[in-house]
Protein backbone atom coordinates (compact mmCIF):
# COMPACT_ATOMS: atom_id res chain seq x y z
CA UNK A 1 0.00 0.00 0.00
CA UNK A 2 1.39 3.35 -1.03
CA UNK A 3 0.03 6.59 0.44
CA UNK A 4 0.57 10.20 -0.68
CA UNK A 5 1.00 9.35 -4.37
CA UNK A 6 0.28 11.92 -7.06
CA UNK A 7 -2.68 9.86 -8.11
CA UNK A 8 -4.37 9.88 -4.69
CA UNK A 9 -3.54 13.55 -4.12
CA UNK A 10 -4.87 14.71 -7.47
CA UNK A 11 -7.58 12.06 -7.28
CA UNK A 12 -9.29 13.61 -4.27
CA UNK A 13 -9.62 16.88 -6.20
CA UNK A 14 -11.05 14.97 -9.17
CA UNK A 15 -13.67 13.58 -6.79
CA UNK A 16 -14.60 17.09 -5.64
CA UNK A 17 -15.40 18.27 -9.18
CA UNK A 18 -18.78 19.81 -9.78
CA UNK A 19 -18.98 20.68 -6.11
CA UNK A 20 -18.77 23.65 -3.76
CA UNK A 21 -16.17 24.06 -1.01
CA UNK A 22 -17.28 26.46 1.72
CA UNK A 23 -15.32 28.56 4.21
CA UNK A 24 -16.41 27.87 7.79
CA UNK A 25 -15.14 29.26 11.08
CA UNK A 26 -16.78 26.82 13.53
CA UNK A 27 -18.49 23.45 13.83
CA UNK A 28 -22.00 24.91 13.48
CA UNK A 29 -21.14 26.54 10.17
CA UNK A 30 -19.50 23.31 9.01
CA UNK A 31 -22.74 21.43 9.69
CA UNK A 32 -24.76 24.02 7.76
CA UNK A 33 -22.34 23.66 4.84
CA UNK A 34 -22.51 19.86 4.88
CA UNK A 35 -26.29 19.88 5.16
CA UNK A 36 -26.48 22.20 2.15
CA UNK A 37 -24.42 19.75 0.09
CA UNK A 38 -20.89 21.17 0.23
CA UNK A 39 -18.29 18.66 -1.03
CA UNK A 40 -15.78 19.92 1.53
CA UNK A 41 -15.30 22.70 4.06
CA UNK A 42 -12.37 25.07 4.48
CA UNK A 43 -11.66 25.68 8.15
CA UNK A 44 -10.34 29.15 8.91
CA UNK A 45 -10.39 31.59 11.78
CA UNK A 46 -12.04 34.49 9.99
CA UNK A 47 -13.68 34.61 6.58
CA UNK A 48 -11.80 36.78 4.07
CA UNK A 49 -14.30 39.67 4.40
CA UNK A 50 -13.44 39.89 8.12
CA UNK A 51 -9.70 39.51 7.53
CA UNK A 52 -10.01 42.43 5.14
CA UNK A 53 -12.00 44.49 7.66
CA UNK A 54 -9.98 43.67 10.79
CA UNK A 55 -6.49 43.85 9.29
CA UNK A 56 -3.49 42.53 11.21
CA UNK A 57 -1.59 39.31 10.51
CA UNK A 58 -3.85 36.44 9.43
CA UNK A 59 -2.50 33.00 10.38
CA UNK A 60 -3.33 29.29 10.44
CA UNK A 61 -6.38 28.45 12.58
CA UNK A 62 -6.32 27.16 16.13
CA UNK A 63 -5.93 23.34 15.99
CA UNK A 64 -8.82 23.01 18.48
CA UNK A 65 -11.13 24.64 15.99
CA UNK A 66 -9.95 22.28 13.23
CA UNK A 67 -10.50 19.27 15.53
CA UNK A 68 -14.05 20.44 16.29
CA UNK A 69 -14.86 20.85 12.62
CA UNK A 70 -13.39 17.45 11.78
CA UNK A 71 -15.55 15.92 14.50
CA UNK A 72 -18.68 17.70 13.28
CA UNK A 73 -18.73 16.63 9.61
CA UNK A 74 -17.83 13.65 7.42
CA UNK A 75 -16.98 15.64 4.27
CA UNK A 76 -13.30 16.48 3.68
CA UNK A 77 -11.91 19.26 5.86
CA UNK A 78 -9.37 21.63 4.33
CA UNK A 79 -7.40 24.33 6.12
CA UNK A 80 -5.24 27.29 5.16
CA UNK A 81 -1.60 27.98 5.89
CA UNK A 82 0.42 31.06 5.05
CA UNK A 83 2.42 31.16 1.81
CA UNK A 84 5.84 29.64 2.48
CA UNK A 85 4.97 28.61 6.05
CA UNK A 86 5.99 24.96 5.91
CA UNK A 87 5.71 24.60 9.68
CA UNK A 88 2.02 25.56 9.66
CA UNK A 89 1.53 23.14 6.77
CA UNK A 90 3.24 20.37 8.76
CA UNK A 91 0.91 21.02 11.70
CA UNK A 92 -2.11 20.84 9.41
CA UNK A 93 -0.83 17.56 7.98
CA UNK A 94 -0.35 16.20 11.51
CA UNK A 95 -3.94 17.23 12.33
CA UNK A 96 -5.07 15.07 9.42
CA UNK A 97 -6.69 17.77 7.28
CA UNK A 98 -7.63 16.45 3.85
CA UNK A 99 -6.18 19.35 1.82
CA UNK A 100 -3.92 22.28 2.72
CA UNK A 101 -4.60 25.62 1.02
CA UNK A 102 -1.35 27.59 0.80
CA UNK A 103 -3.31 30.80 0.67
CA UNK A 104 -2.78 34.46 -0.19
CA UNK A 105 -5.77 35.23 2.04
CA UNK A 106 -3.46 34.76 5.03
CA UNK A 107 -0.45 37.01 5.52
CA UNK A 108 2.53 35.55 3.61
CA UNK A 109 5.39 34.13 5.70
CA UNK A 110 7.93 34.09 2.87
CA UNK A 111 8.09 36.73 0.16
CA UNK A 112 10.18 34.67 -2.25
CA UNK A 113 9.33 31.02 -1.84
CA UNK A 114 6.29 28.83 -1.68
CA UNK A 115 6.24 25.54 0.23
CA UNK A 116 7.88 22.45 -1.32
CA UNK A 117 4.61 20.58 -1.52
CA UNK A 118 6.15 17.34 -2.84
CA UNK A 119 7.49 16.78 0.66
CA UNK A 120 3.98 16.29 2.11
CA UNK A 121 1.54 13.36 2.15
CA UNK A 122 -1.39 15.77 2.43
CA UNK A 123 -2.28 17.35 -0.93
CA UNK A 124 -2.18 21.12 -1.50
CA UNK A 125 -4.35 23.58 -3.36
CA UNK A 126 -2.86 26.95 -4.42
CA UNK A 127 -4.21 30.10 -6.03
CA UNK A 128 -3.22 31.39 -9.46
CA UNK A 129 -3.92 34.46 -11.58
CA UNK A 130 -2.46 33.12 -14.80
CA UNK A 131 -1.05 29.98 -16.39
CA UNK A 132 2.56 30.62 -15.36
CA UNK A 133 1.58 30.96 -11.72
CA UNK A 134 -0.59 27.81 -11.89
CA UNK A 135 2.24 25.78 -13.44
CA UNK A 136 4.81 27.04 -10.91
CA UNK A 137 2.56 25.85 -8.11
CA UNK A 138 2.03 22.49 -9.85
CA UNK A 139 5.80 22.31 -10.30
CA UNK A 140 6.14 22.74 -6.53
CA UNK A 141 3.70 19.87 -5.99
CA UNK A 142 0.22 21.46 -5.82
CA UNK A 143 -2.40 18.79 -6.59
CA UNK A 144 -5.19 21.30 -7.22
CA UNK A 145 -5.38 24.91 -8.43
CA UNK A 146 -7.94 27.63 -7.85
CA UNK A 147 -8.24 31.10 -9.28
CA UNK A 148 -7.22 33.72 -6.75
CA UNK A 149 -9.96 36.14 -7.62
CA UNK A 150 -10.13 38.79 -4.92
CA UNK A 151 -11.20 37.15 -1.68
CA UNK A 152 -13.63 38.85 0.68
CA UNK A 153 -14.97 41.32 -1.89
CA UNK A 154 -18.11 39.52 -3.07
CA UNK A 155 -17.06 40.76 -6.50
CA UNK A 156 -16.52 38.04 -9.10
CA UNK A 157 -14.67 40.23 -11.62
CA UNK A 158 -11.16 39.16 -10.61
CA UNK A 159 -12.00 35.44 -10.60
CA UNK A 160 -13.38 35.89 -14.11
CA UNK A 161 -10.24 37.73 -15.17
CA UNK A 162 -7.98 34.99 -13.77
CA UNK A 163 -9.96 32.15 -15.32
CA UNK A 164 -10.12 33.84 -18.72
CA UNK A 165 -6.40 34.52 -18.57
CA UNK A 166 -5.56 30.89 -17.75
CA UNK A 167 -7.85 29.62 -20.54
CA UNK A 168 -6.45 32.04 -23.13
CA UNK A 169 -2.89 31.16 -22.21
CA UNK A 170 -3.64 27.44 -22.44
CA UNK A 171 -5.11 27.95 -25.91
CA UNK A 172 -2.01 29.90 -26.94
CA UNK A 173 0.34 27.19 -25.65
CA UNK A 174 -1.69 24.44 -27.35
CA UNK A 175 -1.28 26.09 -30.74
CA UNK A 176 2.50 26.50 -30.42
CA UNK A 177 5.09 24.37 -32.16
CA UNK A 178 7.48 22.37 -29.96
CA UNK A 179 10.27 24.84 -30.72
CA UNK A 180 8.22 27.67 -29.15
CA UNK A 181 7.53 25.99 -25.85
CA UNK A 182 10.87 26.68 -24.17
CA UNK A 183 10.61 30.44 -24.68
CA UNK A 184 6.97 30.32 -23.64
CA UNK A 185 8.05 28.53 -20.46
CA UNK A 186 10.75 31.15 -19.88
CA UNK A 187 8.36 34.05 -20.49
CA UNK A 188 5.72 32.80 -18.08
CA UNK A 189 8.22 31.49 -15.56
CA UNK A 190 6.85 27.97 -15.66
CA UNK A 191 8.51 24.53 -15.79
CA UNK A 192 9.11 23.48 -19.41
CA UNK A 193 7.98 19.90 -18.78
CA UNK A 194 4.57 21.02 -17.56
CA UNK A 195 4.20 23.61 -20.32
CA UNK A 196 4.77 20.74 -22.77
CA UNK A 197 2.15 18.67 -21.02
CA UNK A 198 -0.40 21.52 -21.27
CA UNK A 199 0.47 21.96 -24.96
CA UNK A 200 -0.22 18.27 -25.59
CA UNK A 201 -3.40 17.87 -23.55
CA UNK A 202 -4.84 21.39 -23.90
CA UNK A 203 -5.70 21.38 -20.22
CA UNK A 204 -4.17 21.72 -16.76
CA UNK A 205 -2.79 18.49 -15.29
CA UNK A 206 -4.77 19.10 -12.07
CA UNK A 207 -8.28 20.21 -11.18
CA UNK A 208 -8.96 23.97 -11.25
CA UNK A 209 -11.67 25.55 -9.09
CA UNK A 210 -12.93 29.14 -9.00
CA UNK A 211 -12.32 31.19 -5.86
CA UNK A 212 -12.28 34.78 -4.73
CA UNK A 213 -15.49 36.79 -4.99
CA UNK A 214 -18.20 34.20 -5.72
CA UNK A 215 -21.30 35.46 -3.85
CA UNK A 216 -24.43 34.24 -5.66
CA UNK A 217 -25.76 31.14 -7.45
CA UNK A 218 -25.39 32.96 -10.76
CA UNK A 219 -21.73 33.76 -9.94
CA UNK A 220 -21.12 30.03 -9.46
CA UNK A 221 -22.88 29.24 -12.75
CA UNK A 222 -20.82 31.93 -14.49
CA UNK A 223 -17.54 30.41 -13.31
CA UNK A 224 -18.65 26.89 -14.25
CA UNK A 225 -19.55 28.24 -17.69
CA UNK A 226 -16.02 29.62 -18.00
CA UNK A 227 -14.71 26.09 -17.53
CA UNK A 228 -13.73 25.73 -13.87
CA UNK A 229 -14.19 22.31 -12.28
CA UNK A 230 -15.95 23.56 -9.14
CA UNK A 231 -16.28 26.51 -6.80
CA UNK A 232 -14.92 27.80 -3.51
CA UNK A 233 -17.22 30.17 -1.64
CA UNK A 234 -15.67 32.14 1.17
CA UNK A 235 -17.52 35.03 2.74
CA UNK A 236 -20.41 34.60 0.27
CA UNK A 237 -22.30 32.12 2.44
CA UNK A 238 -21.96 33.32 6.01
CA UNK A 239 -21.95 37.05 5.19
CA UNK A 240 -25.27 36.75 3.35
CA UNK A 241 -28.64 37.32 5.01
CA UNK A 242 -29.55 33.61 4.71
CA UNK A 243 -26.54 31.26 4.96
CA UNK A 244 -28.59 28.03 4.67
CA UNK A 245 -30.43 29.32 1.64
CA UNK A 246 -27.34 30.68 -0.10
CA UNK A 247 -25.30 27.55 0.63
CA UNK A 248 -27.91 25.26 -0.80
CA UNK A 249 -28.68 27.47 -3.80
CA UNK A 250 -25.00 27.81 -4.75
CA UNK A 251 -24.55 24.00 -4.57
CA UNK A 252 -27.56 23.49 -6.84
CA UNK A 253 -26.50 26.21 -9.28
CA UNK A 254 -23.04 24.63 -9.53
CA UNK A 255 -24.48 21.27 -10.60
CA UNK A 256 -27.07 22.79 -12.95
CA UNK A 257 -24.95 25.73 -14.13
CA UNK A 258 -25.97 25.23 -17.74
CA UNK A 259 -29.69 25.18 -16.95
CA UNK A 260 -30.75 28.81 -16.37
CA UNK A 261 -34.25 27.75 -15.23
CA UNK A 262 -32.71 25.88 -12.30
CA UNK A 263 -30.26 28.70 -11.47
CA UNK A 264 -33.17 31.14 -11.61
CA UNK A 265 -35.38 28.97 -9.44
CA UNK A 266 -32.77 28.55 -6.71
CA UNK A 267 -32.02 32.30 -6.80
CA UNK A 268 -35.59 33.31 -5.93
CA UNK A 269 -36.19 35.05 -2.62
CA UNK A 270 -32.74 34.41 -1.22
CA UNK A 271 -32.48 37.79 0.49
CA UNK A 272 -29.41 39.97 0.48
CA UNK A 273 -26.10 38.67 -0.80
CA UNK A 274 -22.93 39.67 1.05
CA UNK A 275 -22.09 43.35 0.59
CA UNK A 276 -19.64 43.77 -2.27
CA UNK A 277 -16.59 45.94 -2.86
CA UNK A 278 -15.73 47.74 -6.10
CA UNK A 279 -12.18 46.95 -7.24
CA UNK A 280 -11.37 50.66 -7.79
CA UNK A 281 -11.96 51.31 -4.11
CA UNK A 282 -9.18 48.89 -3.11
CA UNK A 283 -5.65 50.16 -2.68
CA UNK A 284 -2.93 48.02 -4.25
CA UNK A 285 -1.83 47.02 -0.76
CA UNK A 286 -5.35 45.73 -0.07
CA UNK A 287 -5.32 43.37 -3.01
CA UNK A 288 -4.72 39.85 -1.72
CA UNK A 289 -4.27 38.34 -5.20
CA UNK A 290 -0.91 40.05 -5.67
CA UNK A 291 0.53 37.98 -2.80
CA UNK A 292 2.41 34.94 -4.13
CA UNK A 293 5.36 34.68 -6.48
Amino acid at each position, binding site marked *: *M*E*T*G*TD*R*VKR*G*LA*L*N*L*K*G*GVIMDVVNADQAKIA*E*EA*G*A*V*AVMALERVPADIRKDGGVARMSDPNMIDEIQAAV*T*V*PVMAKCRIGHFAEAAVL*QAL*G*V*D*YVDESEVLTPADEEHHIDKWAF*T*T*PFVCGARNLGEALRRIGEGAAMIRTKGEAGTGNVVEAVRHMRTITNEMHAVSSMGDEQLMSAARDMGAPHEIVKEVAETGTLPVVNFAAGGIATPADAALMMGLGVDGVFVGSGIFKSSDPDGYARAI*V*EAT*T*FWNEPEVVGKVSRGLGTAMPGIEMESLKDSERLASRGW
Partner: protein
Amino acid sequence: MSRIGVLALQGDVREHVNILESLDADALEVKKPDELLEIDALILPGGESTTIAKMAVRFGLIEPIRSVIDEGLPVYGTCAGMILLASTISDSDQPVIGALDVVVRRNAYGRQNESFEAPLDVEGLDSPFPGVFIRAPWVEKVGADVEVLAAIDDHPVMVRQGRTLATSFHPELTDDGRIHEMLLELI
Protein backbone atom coordinates in the same frame (compact mmCIF):
# COMPACT_ATOMS: atom_id res chain seq x y z
CA MET B 1 -23.11 0.64 -29.63
CA SER B 2 -24.07 0.55 -25.96
CA ARG B 3 -24.99 3.80 -24.32
CA ILE B 4 -23.85 4.17 -20.73
CA GLY B 5 -25.22 6.86 -18.43
CA VAL B 6 -22.99 8.49 -15.83
CA LEU B 7 -24.86 10.19 -12.98
CA ALA B 8 -23.55 13.76 -13.26
CA LEU B 9 -24.65 15.54 -10.09
CA GLN B 10 -21.07 15.83 -8.80
CA GLY B 11 -17.82 13.87 -8.90
CA ASP B 12 -15.37 12.33 -11.36
CA VAL B 13 -17.90 12.09 -14.18
CA ARG B 14 -15.45 13.11 -16.91
CA GLU B 15 -13.03 10.32 -15.99
CA HIS B 16 -15.76 7.69 -16.36
CA VAL B 17 -16.82 9.20 -19.68
CA ASN B 18 -13.22 9.08 -20.93
CA ILE B 19 -12.72 5.44 -20.02
CA LEU B 20 -16.08 4.47 -21.57
CA GLU B 21 -15.16 6.25 -24.78
CA SER B 22 -11.81 4.43 -24.82
CA LEU B 23 -13.86 1.19 -24.80
CA ASP B 24 -15.98 2.42 -27.75
CA ALA B 25 -19.09 2.87 -25.63
CA ASP B 26 -21.31 5.92 -25.93
CA ALA B 27 -21.49 7.95 -22.68
CA LEU B 28 -24.37 10.15 -21.55
CA GLU B 29 -24.26 12.45 -18.54
CA VAL B 30 -27.43 11.89 -16.53
CA LYS B 31 -28.94 14.66 -14.41
CA LYS B 32 -32.67 14.08 -14.89
CA PRO B 33 -34.98 11.11 -14.35
CA ASP B 34 -36.10 10.84 -17.98
CA GLU B 35 -32.48 10.44 -19.11
CA LEU B 36 -32.44 7.12 -17.23
CA LEU B 37 -34.71 5.71 -19.91
CA GLU B 38 -32.20 6.35 -22.69
CA ILE B 39 -29.36 4.17 -21.39
CA ASP B 40 -28.22 0.53 -21.38
CA ALA B 41 -26.27 0.76 -18.11
CA LEU B 42 -25.64 3.35 -15.39
CA ILE B 43 -22.51 4.42 -13.53
CA LEU B 44 -22.64 6.15 -10.15
CA PRO B 45 -19.26 7.92 -10.05
CA GLY B 46 -16.78 8.72 -7.34
CA GLY B 47 -17.43 11.97 -5.52
CA GLU B 48 -18.70 13.15 -2.17
CA SER B 49 -21.46 10.72 -1.26
CA THR B 50 -23.33 13.13 1.04
CA THR B 51 -23.47 15.73 -1.75
CA ILE B 52 -24.55 13.31 -4.46
CA ALA B 53 -27.19 11.77 -2.16
CA LYS B 54 -28.65 15.15 -1.20
CA MET B 55 -28.77 16.32 -4.79
CA ALA B 56 -30.33 13.04 -5.92
CA VAL B 57 -33.06 13.49 -3.31
CA ARG B 58 -33.68 17.16 -4.13
CA PHE B 59 -33.90 16.52 -7.84
CA GLY B 60 -36.06 13.41 -7.53
CA LEU B 61 -33.60 10.80 -8.77
CA ILE B 62 -33.52 8.19 -5.99
CA GLU B 63 -36.80 6.44 -6.82
CA PRO B 64 -36.29 6.48 -10.60
CA ILE B 65 -32.78 5.02 -10.22
CA ARG B 66 -34.06 2.33 -7.86
CA SER B 67 -36.79 1.44 -10.30
CA VAL B 68 -34.54 1.10 -13.40
CA ILE B 69 -32.20 -1.10 -11.36
CA ASP B 70 -35.16 -3.23 -10.24
CA GLU B 71 -36.11 -3.61 -13.88
CA GLY B 72 -32.67 -5.04 -14.62
CA LEU B 73 -30.54 -2.08 -15.73
CA PRO B 74 -26.86 -2.93 -15.13
CA VAL B 75 -25.33 -0.46 -12.70
CA TYR B 76 -21.80 0.15 -11.42
CA GLY B 77 -20.89 2.36 -8.44
CA THR B 78 -17.36 3.49 -7.60
CA CYS B 79 -16.55 4.70 -4.08
CA ALA B 80 -19.36 7.21 -3.41
CA GLY B 81 -21.38 5.21 -5.95
CA MET B 82 -20.92 2.07 -3.86
CA ILE B 83 -22.18 3.95 -0.79
CA LEU B 84 -25.27 5.14 -2.71
CA LEU B 85 -26.05 1.58 -3.81
CA ALA B 86 -25.65 0.00 -0.38
CA SER B 87 -28.70 -1.07 1.58
CA THR B 88 -27.10 0.04 4.86
CA ILE B 89 -24.41 2.57 5.76
CA SER B 90 -22.93 2.16 9.21
CA ASP B 91 -22.99 5.37 11.28
CA SER B 92 -25.12 7.30 8.84
CA ASP B 93 -28.77 7.81 8.02
CA GLN B 94 -28.18 9.41 4.64
CA PRO B 95 -30.60 8.32 1.93
CA VAL B 96 -29.60 5.38 -0.23
CA ILE B 97 -30.76 3.59 -3.32
CA GLY B 98 -30.40 0.27 -1.52
CA ALA B 99 -30.00 -2.00 -4.55
CA LEU B 100 -27.01 -3.84 -3.11
CA ASP B 101 -27.45 -6.03 -0.05
CA VAL B 102 -24.35 -4.89 1.85
CA VAL B 103 -23.37 -2.84 4.86
CA VAL B 104 -20.67 -0.29 3.96
CA ARG B 105 -18.51 1.85 6.21
CA ARG B 106 -17.70 5.30 4.85
CA ASN B 107 -14.13 6.66 5.07
CA ALA B 108 -13.25 3.23 6.45
CA TYR B 109 -9.51 3.61 5.90
CA GLY B 110 -9.38 7.09 7.42
CA ARG B 111 -8.82 10.57 6.03
CA GLN B 112 -6.94 11.67 2.93
CA ASN B 113 -3.51 10.97 4.44
CA GLU B 114 -4.54 7.30 4.57
CA SER B 115 -5.68 7.25 0.92
CA PHE B 116 -3.56 4.72 -0.96
CA GLU B 117 -2.79 2.74 -4.07
CA ALA B 118 -2.42 -1.03 -4.00
CA PRO B 119 -2.51 -3.78 -6.64
CA LEU B 120 -5.59 -5.96 -6.21
CA ASP B 121 -6.43 -9.52 -7.16
CA VAL B 122 -9.86 -9.36 -8.77
CA GLU B 123 -11.86 -12.47 -9.52
CA GLY B 124 -12.12 -12.91 -13.26
CA LEU B 125 -9.02 -10.84 -14.11
CA ASP B 126 -5.77 -12.66 -14.87
CA SER B 127 -3.42 -9.98 -13.50
CA PRO B 128 -3.68 -7.54 -10.59
CA PHE B 129 -5.79 -4.41 -11.00
CA PRO B 130 -4.35 -1.01 -9.94
CA GLY B 131 -6.52 -0.11 -6.95
CA VAL B 132 -6.84 3.61 -6.16
CA PHE B 133 -8.50 4.16 -2.78
CA ILE B 134 -9.43 7.74 -1.84
CA ARG B 135 -11.08 8.23 1.55
CA ALA B 136 -12.57 4.93 0.55
CA PRO B 137 -15.37 2.87 2.05
CA TRP B 138 -15.20 -0.86 2.64
CA VAL B 139 -17.88 -3.49 2.86
CA GLU B 140 -18.54 -4.80 6.35
CA LYS B 141 -21.23 -7.37 5.64
CA VAL B 142 -22.61 -8.96 2.51
CA GLY B 143 -26.02 -10.55 1.95
CA ALA B 144 -26.48 -14.11 0.66
CA ASP B 145 -26.79 -13.07 -2.99
CA VAL B 146 -23.68 -10.90 -3.04
CA GLU B 147 -20.42 -12.18 -4.56
CA VAL B 148 -17.14 -10.76 -3.29
CA LEU B 149 -14.81 -10.17 -6.26
CA ALA B 150 -11.93 -8.52 -4.39
CA ALA B 151 -10.99 -7.90 -0.78
CA ILE B 152 -8.22 -6.36 1.27
CA ASP B 153 -7.59 -8.30 4.47
CA ASP B 154 -11.09 -9.26 5.60
CA HIS B 155 -12.91 -6.40 3.92
CA PRO B 156 -14.57 -6.76 0.53
CA VAL B 157 -13.72 -3.85 -1.81
CA MET B 158 -15.47 -5.17 -4.92
CA VAL B 159 -18.83 -6.90 -4.97
CA ARG B 160 -21.49 -7.99 -7.43
CA GLN B 161 -25.13 -8.84 -6.97
CA GLY B 162 -26.84 -9.80 -10.20
CA ARG B 163 -26.30 -6.86 -12.55
CA THR B 164 -25.16 -4.51 -9.80
CA LEU B 165 -21.42 -4.02 -9.48
CA ALA B 166 -19.57 -1.86 -6.95
CA THR B 167 -15.97 -1.05 -6.06
CA SER B 168 -14.65 1.01 -3.18
CA PHE B 169 -11.75 2.00 -5.46
CA HIS B 170 -11.59 4.15 -8.60
CA PRO B 171 -10.79 2.36 -11.90
CA GLU B 172 -11.75 5.62 -13.64
CA LEU B 173 -8.61 7.25 -12.22
CA THR B 174 -6.42 4.67 -14.00
CA ASP B 175 -6.07 3.81 -17.67
CA ASP B 176 -7.16 0.21 -17.02
CA GLY B 177 -10.61 -0.40 -18.52
CA ARG B 178 -11.07 -4.01 -17.43
CA ILE B 179 -13.64 -3.36 -14.72
CA HIS B 180 -15.67 -1.06 -16.97
CA GLU B 181 -15.61 -3.94 -19.49
CA MET B 182 -17.17 -6.16 -16.83
CA LEU B 183 -20.05 -3.65 -16.66
CA LEU B 184 -20.42 -3.65 -20.45
CA GLU B 185 -20.62 -7.45 -20.36
CA LEU B 186 -23.60 -7.26 -17.99
CA ILE B 187 -25.69 -5.49 -20.67
